């Protein structure tokens, strides 16, 4: 897979950065041919993953670091959201819709990531943090970046 662009963000685990991360990734992704609804879906997926790192991974501690890495090929966005938090004990269970370890929450974060992206992969272990990898193709596969108008 040949990347035409890559970027990395590192920011503190504070809730205001959820908006920062999704807007930054969507702006980055818009370099290839996504539709506006595609970009909205990417924003939801990023919000869910980054929100999870803050709430679950770091238990809302505001002084930890969340990393977001994004890369573009001509027709695909790959995103990696990474924390060094508590990790997930049972990944299959965590991925089930409506499963949450917090009664106040709906347990739909992974369901949204799964529905809105083409692939979702979770690497995690208790005490070892969590890495969520997602990718999404553009509908047409046609790109404007680097081509003549």
């Amino acid at each position, binding site marked *: 897979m040949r990347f035409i662009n890559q970027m990395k963000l590192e920011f503190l685990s504070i809730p205001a950065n959820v908006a920062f991360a999704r807007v930054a990734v969507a702006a980055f992704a818009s370099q290839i041919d996504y539709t506006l609804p595609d970009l909205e879906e990417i924003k939801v997926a990023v919000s869910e993953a980054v929100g999870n790192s803050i709430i679950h991974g770091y238990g809302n501690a505001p002084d930890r670091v969340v990393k977001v890495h994004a890369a573009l090929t001509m027709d695909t966005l790959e995103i990696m959201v990474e924390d060094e938090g508590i990790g997930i004990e049972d990944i299959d269970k965590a991925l089930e819709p409506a499963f949450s370890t917090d009664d106040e929450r*709906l347990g739909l974060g992974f369901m949204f990531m799964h529905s809105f992206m083409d692939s979702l992969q979770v690497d995690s272990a208790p005490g070892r943090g969590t890495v969520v990898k997602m990718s999404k193709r553009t509908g047409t596969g046609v790109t404007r970046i680097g081509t003549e108008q």
Partner: protein
Amino acid sequence: MRLDLELIQDTLIVRLSGDLDLGVADYLRDVLEDSLDRQPVKNLVFNLAGVSFVDSSVLGVLLGRYKRISRNGGKVCVVKPQPQVHRILELSGLLRIMAEFPGETDALENIG
């Protein structure tokens, strides 16, 4: 996010706009709980016409208020979510428990 509350008889209209995510979820929950504690509210109308983004943190806040209101025999509905917000509400199942109306007037007529 912007938030505006208006009590019309026993229905609380909650007008929201902007991006609703984890960054505002706690604040939104606190304001709504405070408002429901302070005055007699039977029904809730969430006017989402101005909302450009929601994630699951905020859906949790909406569902929590739904539980409180429906426990007391009230109804909760939503007004005019934009397409991307509508999609999220639908996927989450919230539209199966909260009716959707094109405007506040329709909502008020149908809820009372």
